[in-house]
């Protein structure tokens, strides 16, 4: 752990990403303290430019506070990003692990399914799923997880496939070890690093997908989110540029920070790549 932190620290941009991510998390955690009111509430004069009428980042056509929306939206983005990733990583690891370890028919089926997922436009599929299930936090999480798990499954399958042929796994077979124990105790710990890395990068992708869905009007109507803010503000582009601009910057910074952290994790956990450059 100490050694991991030392390696991680060497990548300065990753540390910067971690700091920014920490700030975003802090903002999400304290949103209800700084902006205790409902972010959908009319908070003052509509269309106020940033800094005027007590609006730090301005207000939209209905007089909603953009800054409050961003703070509350952070909670939504992080929550959905994290939950969708957990579901996708869990499902992907399970399917990929079984396919990689047992091969044969399970593997054949999984490979066709992941190929299908590579063929269908995943964002369109997510739109369809949310539209059919009706927009809500759950349906959005499910939709994002459904279009994301095949990537994890492919990765885990590849790792399992190469590890199961490794001599230390064969040695376990010659000792008569059970499959469950080989999978959980011998192989899985050795492919945790790439799973952690892909998971961390997937949080960023999930946040982007969520904001895209919300932008198209497929967000949970009861919850404030960045994509919704931009979608609601697009008609005001001519008159109130700030309504769209600031939530977009929030997405950009958050996703960038998570990507930086993910790359830092990759460098620290993957010594083979670290030696390059």
């Amino acid at each position, binding site marked *: 752990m100490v050694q991991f932190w030392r390696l991680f620290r060497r990548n300065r941009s990753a540390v910067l990403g971690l700091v920014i991510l920490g700030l975003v998390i802090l903002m999400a955690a304290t949103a209800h303290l700084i902006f205790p009111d409902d972010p959908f509430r009319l908070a003052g004069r509509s269309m106020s430019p940033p800094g005027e009428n007590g609006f730090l980042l301005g207000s939209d056509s209905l007089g909603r506070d953009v800054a409050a929306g961003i703070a509350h939206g952070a909670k939504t983005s992080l929550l959905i990003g994290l939950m969708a990733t957990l579901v996708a990583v869990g499902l992907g690891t399970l399917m990929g692990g079984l396919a990689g370890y047992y091969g044969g028919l399970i593997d054949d089926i999984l490979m066709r399914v992941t190929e299908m997922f590579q063929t269908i436009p995943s964002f369109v599929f997510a739109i369809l799923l949310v539209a059919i299930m009706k927009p809500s936090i759950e349906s959005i999480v499910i939709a994002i997880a459904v279009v994301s798990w095949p990537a994890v499954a492919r990765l885990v399958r590849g790792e399992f496939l190469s590890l199961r042929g490794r*001599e*230390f796994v*064969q*040695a376990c077979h*010659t*000792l008569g070890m059970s499959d469950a124990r080989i999978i959980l105790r011998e192989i899985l710990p050795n492919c945790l690093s790439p799973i952690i890395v892909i998971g961390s990068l997937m949080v960023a992708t999930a946040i982007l997908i969520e904001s895209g869905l919300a932008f198209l009007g497929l967000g949970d109507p009861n919850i404030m989110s960045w994509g919704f803010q931009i979608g609601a503000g697009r008609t005001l582009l001519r008159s109130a540029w700030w309504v769209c601009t600031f939530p977009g910057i929030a997405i950009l910074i958050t996703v960038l920070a998570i990507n930086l952290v993910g790359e830092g994790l990759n460098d620290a956990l993957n010594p083979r790549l670290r030696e390059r450059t």
Partner: protein
Amino acid sequence: MSAPLLEIRDLHVALPAGSERPYAVEAVNADLAPNEILCIVGESGSGKSLMSRAVMGLLPKPHVHVAKGSIRFGEEDLVTIPDARLRQIRGSDISMIFQEPMTALNPVMTIGDQIDEVFRFHEKMSRRERRERAIGLLDDVHLPDPAASMRAYPHELSGGQRQRAMIAMALALDPKILIADEPTTALDVTTQAQILKLIKEMQEKHDTGVLFITHDFGVVADIADRVAVMQGGQMVEAGTAAEVLNNPQHPYTQRLIEAVPSLTPRPPRVQAAKPVLEVKNLTKTFRSGGGFLGFGGEERIVHAAKDVTLELRHGETLGIVGESGSGKSTVARCIVRLIEAEEGKILLGDTDLRPLGRAAMRPHRARIQMVFQDPFASLNPRTKVGAIISQGPIIQGVPREEAEAKTRELLKVVGLDERAYDRYPHEFSGGQRQRIGIARALVLGPDVLVADEPVSALDVSIQAQILRLLDEIRERMTLSMIFITHDLRVAAQVCDRLAVMRYGEVVETGPTAEIFRDPRHEYTRALLAAVPGKDWRAG
């Protein structure tokens, strides 16, 4: 002797800060004369390979660089000359061949194009002339159908053919010096013999000076005019081949040469007639391609084991020898039930192991154990050594304390400190890891030990230690052993009887001494003839 082609003086190659030692190559002096083969011998980490790269200016700069010294080639010093001049020299005056011809050739360029580049960058010649020269070269290195080989991509040739193409490319402009960095290590023994012969033939034809890097004293004996021995970056001994091989002066050289197994088979041990393990008509076929959902063109079928029958007698060591693809490893893995054979019997005592299910097989696991080839891949990097060894008995139902006590005892038996128990595999060297692997197999108290190339990934001095250990243990625990190897020298020292395999079939079996003295099958004869340094009586 004429004036030297290459004079290396006080060469220091610096390693990046924080490495094990400051210099990979330290204060090395060497000369290379025209028309001679100078072998640089050493174990892994001796700096022999980096020294050869320093001559070519191919060090992985800036991390590794020449810190001091000179490499004189004619009037010039290769250490200080400008890059542009060095590029002129590379490929025309000095050229190089590498260990792994598959990765050393560009996979998406034809052999013809890759040879053509050498001409284009160094000479002014018409396209037709270049083509004719290239075809001539491929003919010189005895590639079949040179015109077709020109159009071939590297993956379409065999390993030996690729190395021939590499040699043709290196010799394209008749260089004064050829640097060969372990050029036969990745090849099978019969191919190795052909490539060595080719290098010698080419060198004599063109009066080339050859700097030949190798770890194998057998190869040295076959090819060297002069020999230099390296240890830890320093050149500890140099002299003519006869001097160094037959009368080594430096203790390190003496140790190394002593560690080379002799080709004279060991005196046969008293044979018990009772077999512990009988393999009868074992057959295993691998299929790839085809399949319903794969739409994969025609199906490829490999007969990895065809009707293999073997008998392991009580207390003996049976060697299975053969080249890569002979099926020897497949047979070993079928015996320990890592691979399911399709047909045949695997009789351990009175039980046929082949049809047993997993649960039924489990109690028999303790009786037949395996030692693997790669000391780095055969231990789980995330499990402590103690747990790696003790999990076998625990699975077999031995109480935890007892398994732990047994593990500690076994660590001592294989010559490791008891403190190894709480360490992770990466804290150990290759030889030590192989000891851990042996302990893991022995802790179950097996009757039969299957060892799959247990020493082929190790340096020769470590190899000797592990072989000695296996021998001691075999005596002490009255083990019967199946020993898979491609190295006939090792086989001669370890095995009481041999089975020679080719293309999945056993072509000959018999007592080791008999097979060495009077090989019946032509393939066995070819294998024995190809052993490097067979005329040099070591040990």
